Structures are given as structure tokens and as C-alpha cells.
């Protein structure tokens, strides 16, 4: 049986095969995540009875992958866990959800399904980090629905650092209320196939979201992303920058939608994508959508795809760097640019380490120790 995920809100020609992604259905069991819970955040597991009642708001939060993915959660009978961030509280320590899928289990290839809801109450601010890592061959789904209430601030980081036989489904939906803000950093590295869905409903006026996505797709990896920003309230703002590198035979699909709805006056939506394609055999698909039914808005999107700009190439070569080296350097620069958006230094180092870019850091520390004498 197959199902469809990552729907394009307004379909295009069928022959392009970009309107959605078709995947096989599957089921899994809940993975025990290692969770760091700072003060001010509670975590409960919702049983069915509670679900139908208190989840009411969350039921209306749509996610980027679309309704069909819910079937996996239902069929797997996985209970949703809910985080609640206290009202009026600035929670500095991030909530860390470490989903390392290499845990022990009876059979070799167990699949994993997790479902979370996160409620940031009025005036609260918190950081949520979801770290997906694995070394084995398996499939996992993690779905998270957020409600960010009035004046609240959410900082969301999703790090996909996966082994090359792993299939990952990460699906997020967020409702952003009046004057609330979300900033997110999404990193996609490794995995055999990564499917990512994200949908933001900018429901309240002045609500806003900034997103930075970075990826490296190499070997025969596949990355399929769906991003949807629905501007419902007045004076809302959305901005996404997607930066990535395609190498070897990597394939990537990015669907990015800005929907400027009637009534959402003075909304501003922006979408930018920068794809560096390095080797023959790579394939890039991009569909940047802007839908608009409101006059007093501004929507822009830009995409730059392909090899390194001629002028930039000349500039770098004129400093003595050879072509191949430049490609390596630019690929690294690109992903580092996104990693630098992660505020937490330990997380940044973890990413750099996974990529093998941490040699500089170590060397630096070593030399500092040896050479520190007086000022430095």
C-alpha cells in the first residue's frame, strides 16, 4: 500500500511528478527518546480519552506532510506526548529531544514512530531541539505539532544526522498566535531518504517565522521537503532561506509555498533557495509557490541553482584556489553558514563533528593551550 505526503497546496502539471511524494505505508513502535526537560516545561503522555478533549486545538494544527501521515501514527498506536511551557516564563535551557535510533531491540530493523505536541503558553519562550541520529537500517517518523500562543517565542532546531541506510520522516506543524515568533534551523545530512514537512499557520496578527534550512545530499541520497507558510493574520511575516549542496547522484525536491490569504493585510512572505550542484548525476527539483488572494501584501521568492557563479569563481581563483578546492570550500561554507545559526555552541560542535569539519576547532584549542602566553 502506498500513501502520499508533502502535498503541493496548488498542484501543477502531473507529468512533472512534483505534486506530492508517494511512499510505501509502514508502521513502527515508539522510540524512547532521551529528553532533557528544563524547569518550566512539563511533559505528559496523552491517552485516548484525554486526546479527544484537550487535543482539540492540536487537531486543527496541520502539518507539512499532510493528513495521510497521521495514519502511520494511528496504525502504530503510538501515544502522543505533550510538552507545555509555563506562561510568562523565559526558559533558557533548551528542551532536548534526542532520538538516537540505534537503541537495542529484539529484531534488527524495527521502525520508529513518535508524536509530540508542544504548547508554548502566552509570553513564554523556549528552545526545542530534535536530534535524529542513527547508524542502522530502519525507518522513523517524528511528528511535532506546536501551538505558540500570544507573545510567545519558539526557537526550533531539527538536526538530521543519519546513517546512510536510514529513512527519516520529520513532520512539523505550528500555529503562531498574535505577536508570537518562531525561528527554526533545520539541518539535513545523510540518511538514505529524508522526507521533511513543515507548515506554519500565521494565525495571529504580527506573528512571524524565520527559517534556515541547510543540506548536503550525496551518494544516492534523496531529500524531499515541503514547506508551507499560511499568512492568515494581519502584518504577518515569513522568511525562509534554503541553502544546500548536491553531490554525486544526490536528488532533492523542495516545495516551498507562501500563501497570502485574503484578510491578511500587510503580510510579507519571502522564500530563497540556493543550491550548489557539484557532480554530474545530481538532480534538483524546486517548486516555489506564491498564492495570493489579498492585495495589500508582499511576496517574493528567489532561487539560484547550479554551479558556482562565474564571477565568484574568478574571485576565488584569483586568490590562488583551484577549481575543485573551491567547490569543496563552498560546499563547506554553505552548510557552516546554516550551522552558525544554531545558538547553542555544543550543538554546533556536534554538527561540525558529524560532518568532519571540526578539525579546525580542535587544532585551535590545542594551539591556544600551547601558545597562550600573555595576550593572544
Amino acid at each position, binding site marked *: 500500500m502506498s500513501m502520499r505526503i508533502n502535498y503541493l497546496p496548488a498542484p501543477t502539471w502531473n507529468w512533472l511528478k512534483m505534486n506530492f511524494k508517494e511512499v510505501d505505508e509502514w508502521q513502527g513502535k515508539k522510540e524512547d527518546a532521551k529528553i532533557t526537560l528544563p524547569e518550566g516545561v512539563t511533559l505528559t503522555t496523552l491517552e485516548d480519552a484525554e486526546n479527544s478533549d484537550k487535543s482539540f486545538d492540536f487537531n486543527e494544527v496541520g502539518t507539512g506532510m499532510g493528513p495521510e501521515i497521521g495514519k502511520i501514527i494511528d496504525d502504530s498506536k503510538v501515544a502522543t506526548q505533550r510538552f507545555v511551557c509555563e506562561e510568562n516564563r523565559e526558559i533558557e535551557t533548551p528542551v532536548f529531544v534526542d532520538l538516537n535510533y540505534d537503541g537495542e531491540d529484539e529484531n534488527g530493523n524495527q521502525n520508529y514512530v513518535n508524536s509530540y505536541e508542544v504548547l508554548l503558553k502566552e509570553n513564554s519562550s523556549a528552545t526545542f531541539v530534535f536530534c535524529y541520529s542513527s547508524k542502522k537500517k530502519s525507518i522513523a517518523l517524528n511528528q511535532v505539532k506546536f501551538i505558540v500562543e500570544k507573545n510567545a517565542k519558539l526557537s526550533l532546531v531539527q538536526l538530521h544526522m543519519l546513517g546512510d541506510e536510514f529513512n527519516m520522516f520529520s513532520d512539523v506543524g505550528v500555529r503562531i498566535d498574535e505577536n508570537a515568533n518562531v525561528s527554526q534551523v533545520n539541518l539535513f545530512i545523510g540518511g538514505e531518504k529524508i522526507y521533511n514537512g513543515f507548515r506554519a499557520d500565521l494565525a495571529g496578527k504580527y506573528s512571524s517565522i524565520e527559517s534556515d534550512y541547510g543540506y548536503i545530499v550525496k551518494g544516492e541520497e534523496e531529500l524531499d521537503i515541503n514547506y508551507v507558510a499560511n499568512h492568515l493574520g494581519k502584518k504577518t511575516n515569513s522568511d525562509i532561506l534554503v541553502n544546500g549542496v548536491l553531490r554525486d547522484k544526490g536528488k532533492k525536491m523542495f516545495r516551498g509555498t507562501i500563501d497570502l490569504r485574503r484578510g491578511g493585510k500587510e503580510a510579507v512572505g519571502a522564500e530563497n533557495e540556493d543550491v550548489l550542484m557539484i557532480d554530474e548525476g545530481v538532480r534538483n527539483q524546486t517548486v516555489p509557490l506564491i498564492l495570493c488572494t489579498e492585495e495589500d501584501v508582499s511576496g517574493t521568492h528567489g532561487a539560484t541553482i547550479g554551479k558556482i557563479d562565474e564571477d565568484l569563481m574568478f574571485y576565488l581563483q584569483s586568490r590562488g*584556489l583551484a577549481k575543485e578546492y573551491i567547490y569543496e570550500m563552498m560546499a563547506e*561554507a554553505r552548510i557552516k553558514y546554516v550551522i552558525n545559526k544554531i545558538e547553542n555552541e555544543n550543538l554546533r560542535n556536534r554538527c561540525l563533528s558529524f560532518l568532519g569539519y571540526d578539525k579546525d576547532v580542535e587544532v585551535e584549542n590545542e594551539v591556544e593551550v600551547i601558545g597562550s602566553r600573555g595576550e593572544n
Partner: protein
Amino acid sequence: MSASLLEIKDLCVNVDEKEILHDINLSVNPGEVHVLMGPNGAGKSTLGFAIMGNPRYTITNGSVCFDGEDITEESTDKKANKGIYLSFQNPIEVPGISLGNFIRNALERKTEKKIRLWDFKKKMKSALEVLQMNPEYADRDLNVGFSGGEKKKAEILQMLMLKPKLAILDETDSGLDVDAVKTVSIGIEEYKKEVGGALLIITHSTRILDALDVDKVHVLVDGKIVTTSDKSLIEDINENGFERFL
């Protein structure tokens, strides 16, 4: 003749199928300071780009020799590694790489060996001081969000750190910018002191040249070098402009 560092013979350069430079002959000896002047549109910047091998410019005739080697067909990075440096009027922004790391990478390519971080940091620090640049610049992403003046400083900084045998400074835009002029002047002085390399300064205003010991002055009009002389030509141009060469 074999003593010359840069030898340009009968060079013709096209841009978009149109010939911009015709039969350029120019020779620079090690350590010399040459100035290339001319009215707007003469093709001055074209020469710098052509020497460095910018793909938008096609050499249709003639040759460029550096240090006794014919480098006309060489790739840009090889030319740089042989010791030519071209400063850019509009250096390009590269997010994700810091200015410091970039320079270190370029140096490692050139010398083909790893450079000790501590040594490098020391050298960077002193170069930044000479140019009166805030040491924080080393950590900022290359050219990203830099003002015009900061970009100029970053270009001169790279020149000082890479220590080329020949530095080509295209200052056609700097003319009236007091800060730019100051930065370039300090940079040139330091370069001459520390590196002793040759300089080819491309400009149409003479302010930058005031304190310089200039060996030769070339005037480029409509893509041709119409005259080559010594420093006295600068004053002449200051007073009379380029009228008599047109």
C-alpha cells in the same frame, strides 16, 4: 629583458566579441611601481582582468609572461599562486567562510603546506593593525555586509597577507573617497616595506599617487597605450587632463 617580472606583448583583448584593448605592450621589472592612467572607458580595468584571466575577457592576440614564463593560457588560480594579485573593485560576498580562514586557506594553497594557526593569527593581527582594522574582522564572513570602505580594506589586507610578487590595484572607483585613498596608501607603503614586490596601479585620479615613488606612467586611451613616461607625466595630467592624448 629577461629581468622583467611582467612582460605583456602585443596583447589584444575582447569583451562580448568587441575588441577593447589593442596591441598592448607593457613591461614591469621586479619592485617597480607602474601607474596606468586614462580617461573613463579607456579599458584600464580590462587589462587587470585580462592579465588575471577573467573568463569574460578573451585574449585574441599577444602574450602575458610572468617571471620568465608564458602564463597567457594558465588558469587564474595558477597565476595567483605564481605571485600575481588583483584587487577587486567589487569583491564578492561569501557567507560561511570567515575572512581569516579564507586567507589562511589561500596561503596554504600557495605555499603547499599547513600553516600553524598561532603564527597565522599573529601575522593577521599585525596586518589588521597596520590597516587600522578592528581585529574582529578576521572572524566576519568574507565581505558579507561589509561597507565599501571595509571591502577595500579587506582587499588590501589580503594583498599584505598573500605577499604577491606583483600587485595589481584597480583603483578606478576610489578617486574621491578619502578613506579609500588612505587605506590604499598605507597598504602600498606596507607592501613595499614588507614584501618589496612590484605594483601596477590602475587609476584615473592622481590622489593615490602623491606620496609614491613611481617608476613609469602609462596612459591608456581607447584601448591603446598612447604614451609611457616617468612620474612627471602625473603632474602634467593633473593640470591638463587627458585632452592632448585623445
